[in-house]
């Protein structure tokens, strides 16, 4: 067990805004392929890696995440020996430049300093990937790095990952620089905002950041430390998604409609845990036609669904056609509606509008609770 490290799960920097969805909940609380929340992935990675002391930093609108995470029992974290702590920040005006992760850490410094572990693993709540942190920690300790930084090599850095940081590496995988992705080239190493270091260095960097500027984020202070610290890159392989825009969110979901990709990501030996709701199975009525889709429980399907993700308790009426779309829980699509390339938020009722189609790459977005 990785009792040598505790985990920190961080919320997204204040400059990241996901159109629509983000108005109602933090990115960590976004529904992912209809069934999970984005934060389930970093939490499960930590739990599966044997980390049982975890700090989750919550920013604005914490209700849905607090409810979802609860006591953390469903993440398989021993409630006596382990502890999943939810930490808040007072400075939570979503757009304030002072609303940084450094501010959040400073406000909870007493909690950080009291952790008995020697190492910390920091991971973001707005990315989806699979990573054995125990292995990452072992490599970090063996290599003797000051900081190990997880990155992913992508070839779509022009269109996507626009709010992420890009890592420049030297031949020894030493991090030369960390800068915002400006979309200047296709091939980039994207920082996964995931770090391993000693607890002491972590706290020292937080304090240093605070001294230098009240608006610094942790990534900023890492960027400034490239010259003075031994920061090493560690390449992540496999499925990776950064939920930093509606486009990214949509694409990240759609990629998992590929059976091979999904089967490689969801493996029995590395379960992803989530809060379950005892929803009954899904009922496919006569006349339903469903292909290449992920369908959650307690849906009732009377119409056609293609290349889509259907959330829990969703109703698809007779003759309705859903294509290339994501329908979140409790939404009700009435008979004969045509929806293509859209993200329908929770509790939406599509009653009178008969067609929702986005012509651009960016999907159409329908607001939570809307009646159309």
């Amino acid at each position, binding site marked *: 067990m990785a009792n040598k490290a505790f985990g920190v799960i961080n919320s997204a920097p204040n400059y990241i805004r996901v159109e629509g969805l983000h108005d109602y909940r933090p990115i960590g609380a976004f529904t992912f392929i209809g069934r999970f929340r984005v934060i389930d992935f970093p939490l499960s990675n930590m739990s599966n890696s044997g980390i049982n002391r975890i700090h989750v930093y919550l920013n604005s609108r914490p209700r849905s995440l607090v409810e979802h995470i609860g006591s953390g029992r469903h993440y398989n974290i021993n409630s006596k020996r382990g502890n999943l702590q939810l930490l808040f920040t007072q400075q939570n005006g979503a757009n304030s430049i002072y609303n940084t992760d450094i501010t959040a850490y400073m406000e909870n410094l007493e909690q950080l300093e009291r952790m008995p572990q020697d190492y910390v693993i920091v991971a973001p709540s707005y990315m989806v990937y699979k990573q054995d942190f125990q292995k990452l920690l072992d490599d970090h300790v063996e290599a003797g790095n000051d900081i190990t930084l997880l990155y992913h090599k992508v070839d779509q850095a022009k269109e996507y990952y626009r709010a992420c940081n890009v890592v420049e590496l030297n031949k020894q995988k030493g991090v030369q620089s960390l800068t915002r992705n400006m979309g200047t080239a296709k091939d980039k190493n994207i920082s996964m905002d995931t770090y391993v270091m000693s607890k002491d260095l972590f706290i020292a960097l937080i304090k240093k950041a605070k001294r230098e500027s009240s608006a610094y984020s942790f990534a900023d202070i890492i960027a400034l430390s490239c010259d003075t610290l031994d920061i090493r890159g560690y390449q992540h392989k496999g499925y990776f998604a950064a939920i930093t825009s509606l486009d990214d969110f949509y694409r990240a979901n759609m990629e998992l409609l590929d059976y091979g990709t999904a089967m490689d990501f969801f493996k029995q030996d590395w379960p992803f845990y989530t809060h379950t709701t005892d929803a009954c*199975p899904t*009922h*496919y009525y006569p006349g339903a036609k469903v292909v290449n889709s992920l369908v959650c429980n307690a849906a009732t399907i009377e119409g056609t669904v293609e290349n889509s993700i259907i959330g829990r308790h969703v109703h698809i009426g007779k003759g309705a056609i859903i294509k290339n779309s994501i329908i979140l829980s409790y939404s009700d699509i009435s008979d004969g509606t045509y929806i293509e390339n859209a993200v329908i938020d929770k509790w939406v009722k599509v009653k009178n509008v008969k067609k929702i189609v986005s012509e651009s790459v960016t999907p159409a977005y329908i607001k939570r609770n809307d009646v159309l």
Partner: protein
Amino acid sequence: MAQTSMLAMILAGGRGSRLHDLTNKVAKPAVSYGGKYRIIDFPLSNCANSGVDIVGVLTQYESVLLNSYVAAGGRWGLDTKDSGVFVLTPREKADSGLDVYRGTADAISQNIDFVDAYDPEYILILSGDHIYKMNYDKMLTYHKEQGADATIAVRGVPMKEASRFGIMNTDGNGRIIEFEEKPAKPKSNLASMGIYIFTWKTLRKLLVEDMKNPNSDHDFGKDIIPVMLNDGKKLCAYEFSGYWKDVGTIDSLWEANMDLLDSDNELDLDDTSWKIYTEDSGITPQYIASTAKIDEAYINQGAAVGGTVQRSVIFTNCKIAPGAKVIDSVLMPGAIVEEGAVVTRALVAENVRIGKNAKVGEKKSEEILLVAKNVKGED
């Protein structure tokens, strides 16, 4: 321990031999049903939803799976300070050796100390193998209003079938005046559902006497109820009218599953005000491939469908390969149907694999085929 108003005891000892190979390794109440549930989820969820917080589960046969399943009372929310699900198996005591439960009443008698520890006013006796939703709190209210010593839940059965059941004959006010087990000429169509509420003090006395009676079968229906009627105790019938199914045979288990395809099905598992709780794992949604063709189906999360599914119930983690066909069938958790295989009018047990191009079941068979072992494929 705090005093509890009503404690429930679920009789879950049944071997369920009419379910054949399904109960080789699990007790009958742990058999799967409805895409994701186990039979015992129904009485346990009913308890949780009715505010019955302490539940004893009486079992003696192959209890490992059932035991570890119900011991995690959290599944039904029954894991707070004053609630819990307790598995009660026969045990050695200071004054008696290890002995099997000799009958339904004896199972309770052997656990009088457990019941006493909670000092309940009423005791609810349930069976572990029925599919239904029932508010036991309402039944308790009725029991109190009637001032009854025992209340027995009954349901109306077609008169011509009544001679197959234990029939309660009542006066105009719901009081039971006579009980007839499988009467040749039934006087009423009210069949006992095997659900009883007793005032605990009264039952306790009867059980102590019954234990000493060498001629007793120690059974509620055969011994306790007749004695109570004989003694002039007040027994009342509580009429239930909703979905109810005894899933004691392969055919009735299959039927109960198929009932879920009916959109007017009274059981309504989708009713969030009376959820049936179960083991709910964090697996992926159901994956329906481009090659899939689903006609009518009831499918649970974790399933992957590449083939054709017609009028079938598909449980957690089942895989139906492209080109395979599942028709009028029930696939229990983890069942796999490989390419080209055809499953018709069958109940495929947990984790069973139907090999490539294999054909199991008959469209016109009278009985449902139980497939409890892997079926080899053909190239």
